[in-house]
C-alpha cells in the first residue's frame, strides 16, 4: 500500500513539472499556430538566469521566478517583433517558423556554451534536500513547490483567458484573426503578447527545473520533447487539457515501472504520443480553443 501511495505522489508531482514545461508551448501553438522550437532554449535560459541570480546575488529561485518570467516575457515580445512577425502566416509559415526558431535556439545554446562552458551547474538552496512527511512517505519540498507553481499557473492562465479582456481577445484571435481585425482587436499586439507569455512560461519552467536537476547548455532539449508529448496529448490550445495530459503522462511513466524495465519508462510517453496521433489526432481533449 505504501508503495502505491509513493507512486501516486511521484506521479502527481511529476505531472506538475511536465505541466509547467508544456504550458508555454501549448499557448503559442494554440494562438499563433507556430511550434516554438526555441521553447527549449528559453527553458535553458531560465535555468541559467535562476542560477546566476542565486550564485551572484543570493536571490532565492522562487523569489527570482517573477523577475525571470518578466524578463523572458520581454525577450519573447522582442523575438516576436524582430523575427516571428516577418514570417508568413498559416501553412506557408510552418517550415520557416520551425527553422527560424530552431536557429534562435542554436544561437542561445552556443552563447551559453561560450558564457558558461559545458560544465553541469546545480542550484542548491537550504531546502534542496528537505522533505515533508505525507503519511509514511517523505516528499521533497522542492517538488511540492514546483507542483504548487504549476497549479498557480494553471489557475492564473485560466482566469486570464476566461475573465479578462486580453484573455478573451487571445481566444478570439486563436479562433479567427481576420474577424478580430474587423472588430478592432489589435491582432499583432495580441500575437506579441501571447508569444511573450509563452516565452515567460518556458523560462519559468527552466527555473523550476534548475531547482531539481543539474543543467548545462544542452538543457531544454529533452524537456521540449516532453512538452510536445503533453501538448499533443492534451489537444493543442487547451490549457486545462495540458494539465490533465501532464498528469496522464506522468502517471503512465511512473506506473510503467511495475511492468517494464525502468529505462524504458521514458519511451512510454512517446508510444502514447504515436497512439494519440493515430487514433485521435486532435488530442485527448479535442479541439477546444484555450481556456
Amino acid at each position: 500500500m505504501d508503495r502505491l501511495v509513493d507512486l501516486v505522489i511521484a506521479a502527481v508531482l511529476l505531472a506538475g513539472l511536465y505541466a509547467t514545461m508544456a504550458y508555454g508551448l501549448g499557448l503559442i501553438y494554440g494562438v499563433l499556430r507556430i511550434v516554438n522550437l526555441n521553447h527549449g532554449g528559453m527553458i535553458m535560459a531560465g535555468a541559467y538566469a535562476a542560477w546566476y541570480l542565486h550564485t551572484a546575488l543570493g536571490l532565492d529561485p522562487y523569489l527570482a521566478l517573477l523577475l525571470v518570467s518578466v524578463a523572458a516575457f520581454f525577450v519573447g515580445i522582442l523575438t516576436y517583433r524582430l523575427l516571428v512577425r516577418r514570417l508568413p502566416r498559416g501553412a506557408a509559415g510552418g517550415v520557416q517558423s520551425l527553422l527560424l526558431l530552431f536557429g534562435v535556439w542554436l544561437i542561445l545554446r552556443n552563447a551559453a556554451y561560450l558564457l558558461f562552458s559545458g560544465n553541469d551547474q546545480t542550484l542548491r538552496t537550504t531546502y534542496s534536500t528537505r522533505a515533508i512527511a505525507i503519511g509514511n512517505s517523505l516528499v521533497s519540498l522542492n517538488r511540492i513547490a514546483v507542483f504548487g507553481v504549476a497549479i498557480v499557473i494553471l489557475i492564473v492562465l485560466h482566469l486570464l483567458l476566461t475573465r479578462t479582456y486580453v484573455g478573451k481577445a487571445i481566444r478570439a484571435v486563436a479562433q479567427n484573426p481576420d474577424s478580430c481585425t474587423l472588430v478592432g482587436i489589435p491582432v499583432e499586439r495580441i500575437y506579441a503578447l501571447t508569444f511573450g507569455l509563452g516565452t515567460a512560461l518556458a523560462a519559468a519552467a527552466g527555473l523550476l527545473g534548475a531547482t531539481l536537476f543539474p543543467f548545462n547548455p544542452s538543457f531544454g532539449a529533452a524537456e521540449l520533447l516532453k512538452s510536445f508529448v503533453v501538448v499533443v496529448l492534451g489537444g493543442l490550445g487547451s490549457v486545462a487539457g495540458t494539465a490533465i495530459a501532464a498528469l496522464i503522462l506522468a502517471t503512465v511513466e511512473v506506473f510503467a515501472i511495475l511492468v517494464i524495465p525502468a529505462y524504458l519508462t521514458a519511451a512510454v510517453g512517446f508510444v502514447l504520443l504515436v497512439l494519440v496521433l493515430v487514433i485521435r489526432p486532435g488530442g485527448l481533449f479535442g479541439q477546444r480553443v484555450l481556456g
Partner: protein
Amino acid sequence: MRTANLVLALCALALGACKQSSTDQKQQAAQGSSGAAAPSGTEILIGATLPLTGAESRIGGFYKEGYDLAFEEANQAGGVSVGGKKMPVRLTLLDDTSSQATAASLADRLINSDKVQFLLGTYATNLVEAQTVVAEQNAIPYVNGGGAATAIYKRGYKWVFGLLAPVELLAESIMKWIDAEQQAGKIPKPATISLLWENTSHGKDFRKGVTEFSDKSKNYKVVVDESFELGGKDFSALLGQVKAAKTDLFLADAHLPDYITMQRQYVTAGLCNKVLSYGARGSEKQAADALGKKNVEYILSAVWWSPLLADKNPEAKKFVDTFKAKYQNRVPEWYQALGYETARALFRAIEQAGSLDRNAVREKLAALKMPSVLPGGELTFPAEFGQQSHAPFVVQQNLPDGSSPIVAPPDSATGKGIAPNPNCAK
C-alpha cells in the same frame, strides 16, 4: 496541418544535433589548419582530439592539461630518444566538440592530411569507440586514456591501447572492499543489493562486475536490478523499489548529473543503506557543493587514480608535484593523470622501439611494462584483455570531515573505511 507541423518539428529536432556537429566540424577544420604541418623528420608528430567544447568540455580540458604537461616535460628533457637521438615531440590537438562523428573525421584528418605519426585518444567511451575504428583502418598506434568500456577492446584491434581499466573491475574493487567488511562482521551475511545502472556500456559493465562477484561469492543477493536512462529527471519510482526492498547495499553506476539528481532524491526520500556507492562518482567537490557535505557522507567510490597515491607511489608523487608547479598549485584529478600517463606510455614505447616505425612502436606498446603513476605502480596492456590496462582501482570513501581517503586496495590505502553507514543509525 497541425500534425504535419509537429512531425516537421520533431524531424528538425532530430536533425539538430547533426547540423550542429557539421557546423562545428567546419569551424574546427578552419581553426586546426594553422596548427597542422607535414612531418619534418626532425620532430615526432603526434595527433589527438579532445572534447574542448560541448558536453564533455570540462573533462576534455583536464585531459589537455595532462597532455600538455607530458609534452612539456619530454621536450624540456630534450625530447624523446629515438635510436640514440633526442627528437622533440609536437602535439597537433583538435577539438572534437564532444561529437562522435567529428571525433572520427578529425582522427582521419590527423592521419591522412596532417600526417601525424601516432595518435593519442580523446575522452569518453563513445568518442574513443568511434576513433579506434579509424586508427585500426589506418594501422596507426592509438593510445587512449579516456575509453573504459570493454566493448572497445573486445574487437580484436591490433593498434588500440587503453589505459583505463574496465568498469567491471571498478565494480569488483568496490565489492572486494565490501566483502572484507562483511568478513569482519560489519555487514550482514548474506547481504542484499539494490543495483541500479545507467543503460550504457559503462553501466552494463558495472552491473556485470557486481553480479559476477555476488554470484561467485554466494554471500550476496541482488534484489533490485534496474537500469535507468542516462540524463534521467525523475528517479522517484525507481528509488521507491529500493525503499520497498529494504536492501543492505545500494550500488549504482551513474554519471555526475545523474548521481546528483538521484542522490538528492535518495536523501529526500529518507533512504539509508549500510553501504552506498555511485561507482566512479562520489568524491567530486561539485557533488558536495550541489548536495551539501552531509548528504555525500560515507559514499564509496572507485576511481582510476587519486592524488592521494602520491603518498605511496613515487611516480605519482612526481606527477602531482610537477602538475602543481605548472598549474598554480592546483591538485590534479584522475583525468589529468590519465592524460599525462597516456602520452608518457606512447613516448616510452617510441623510445623502446628506437624508431618511428608504426609496427615497431605497436609491438613495444603491446609488450610495455613501465613504472606508472597508476595504482599498482606499473602499466601494461595485456593481450588477453584486448590491450586494455587492468591496473587496480582505488576505492575511496567520503568522511564527515570532508576528506575522501583511499580505503582499498590495502597497498594504496591512506585511511580506513567505515561500514555500516553510521548515518543509518541516527
